């Protein structure tokens, strides 16, 4: 039998290729945008206005800063592209005979597939973060920038423990939402595949298309109903929610999303285990 770690590492290798490709394209486009910005600044990209002060720095620092800012701006688009590509890749793996022949149970297979897509996403964010940090670091040599930053850090030290918990909660929520995205895409794909395998042979492509659209609408409707039910149940379970206690509200939301992720994953596993075949070569 193949271990979960072995499969996870191999799937991560596969998906990180998309990460490197997206990162390279992002870096190249950021470079192009930076050059365009620099030329449109009429030769004065090294002049910065900070709190009304005119700061002049050297050209290299200014170029690097512009590149870093461009990397940050393009990261939103790059991350969106990654989500789409990784979702398609996940579904290809779910149906690939090459992957499905691996001796591992379907639960571990699916969790490895979702998990590696998400970890690869975090890897993309880390790469982008490091690039932005490294390219923006030299700007710290500018006095006004340093002053502003130290002011910001002093403010952040004054944050209450509750604020840090809220930040942590928000981070967990992002992870649960990210996982939910992959689980829902799989639910739509796997359930429509399963249903289409039951349709009579020779159904036209148009009918297949209609079936798929109906399934997608039905699943979205079911998911919205399920979300309402889950959130309703959670709010009943935690009676203080109505009082506006932020911590409890956040906990309630996290528990609801966790439950939602677990339920959708269980349905995905059932579909993969019982109904969805590997695509014939």
């Amino acid at each position, binding site marked *: *039998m*193949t271990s979960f770690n*072995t*499969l996870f*590492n*191999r799937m991560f290798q596969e998906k990180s290729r998309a990460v490197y490709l997206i990162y390279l394209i992002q870096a190249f486009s950021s470079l192009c945008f930076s050059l365009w910005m620099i030329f449109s600044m009429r030769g004065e990209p090294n002049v910065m206005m900070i709190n009304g002060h005119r700061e002049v720095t050297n050209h290299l620092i200014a170029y690097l800063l512009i590149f870093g800012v461009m990397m940050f701006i393009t990261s939103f688009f790059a991350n969106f592209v990654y989500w789409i590509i990784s979702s398609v890749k996940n579904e290809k*793996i779910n149906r*690939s*005979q*090459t*992957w*499905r*022949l*691996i*001796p*591992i*149970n*379907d639960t571990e297979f699916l969790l490895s597939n979702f998990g590696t897509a998400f970890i690869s996403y975090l890897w993309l964010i880390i790469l982008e973060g490091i690039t932005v940090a490294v390219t923006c670091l030299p700007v710290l040599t500018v006095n006004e920038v340093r002053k502003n930053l130290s002011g910001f850090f002093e403010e952040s030290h004054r944050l209450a423990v509750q604020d840090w918990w809220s930040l942590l909660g928000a981070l967990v929520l992002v992870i649960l939402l990210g996982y939910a995205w992959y689980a829902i895409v799989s639910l739509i794909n796997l359930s429509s595949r399963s249903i289409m*395998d*039951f*349709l*009579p*042979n*020779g*159904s036209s492509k148009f009918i297949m298309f209609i079936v798929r659209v109906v399934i997608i609408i039905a699943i979205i409707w079911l998911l919205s109903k399920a979300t309402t039910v889950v959130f309703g149940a959670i709010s009943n379970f935690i009676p203080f929610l109505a009082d506006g206690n932020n911590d409890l509200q956040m906990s309630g939301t996290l528990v609801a999303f966790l439950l939602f992720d677990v339920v959708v994953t269980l349905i995905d596993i059932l579909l993969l*285990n*019982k*109904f*969805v*075949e*590997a*695509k*014939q*070569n």
Partner: protein
Amino acid sequence: MSDLLQVKDLSYKKNQKMILKDVNLNLSSGKIVALLGENGAGKTTLMRIIAGVAKNYRGEVNLEGSTKEAERKAKLSFTDGLTGFSDSTKIKDVVKFYAIIFQDFDENEFTELRKFMKLDPEMKLSQLSRGMREKLIIALTFARKADLYLLDEPFGGIDAMARKKIINSIILWKEEKATILISDHFVNEISSLLDEVVVVKDHTVLEHKSADDIRQNHKSIEEYYESFYADEDDE
């Protein structure tokens, strides 16, 4: 001798069409078995069910005491079309994948087989002709030390000379206890290898006979196989 593979009351339907119905098949260890049948008879489906990649079937498949699909997959080696790899993947990268994923994959054995098949590890999958791709698939399949080898029409694109060489060597590549189930249209060419013949017709296993019995009662295995379709030809 206990059976290596037991398929019991297996039925499989797809798109409301019956593909396999009440299939029962027992294979013992150390045999080379031909799975014969016309196109669409259900040979590939039967292999895919045994391999655990076709779902939603009724009945039981037991491979050396394992009924769970994941456990079966660990004990068998199936000719996969390598569609999970992009065309730009090099042979050496496919081998790396197999070596990491399958514990029973023997890289030295693969190197021997690769040399025999005259395959360059630096070649990309897109550079391989159909025959070369099939040679690679055969090499990858036999580089695993499995109990059961499922070969689904493995020689379709391979030229006659290489095919003959490969067929003659297959017996050397498998462990003594391992069984090979092979579906192929070149009945005459594989007939000398065979210990048993299984005929799939009318959605089920119609006959399962020893090759020696067939040779005694018919001129050849091909003739025996063709006798199942004699009535249809007359019509």
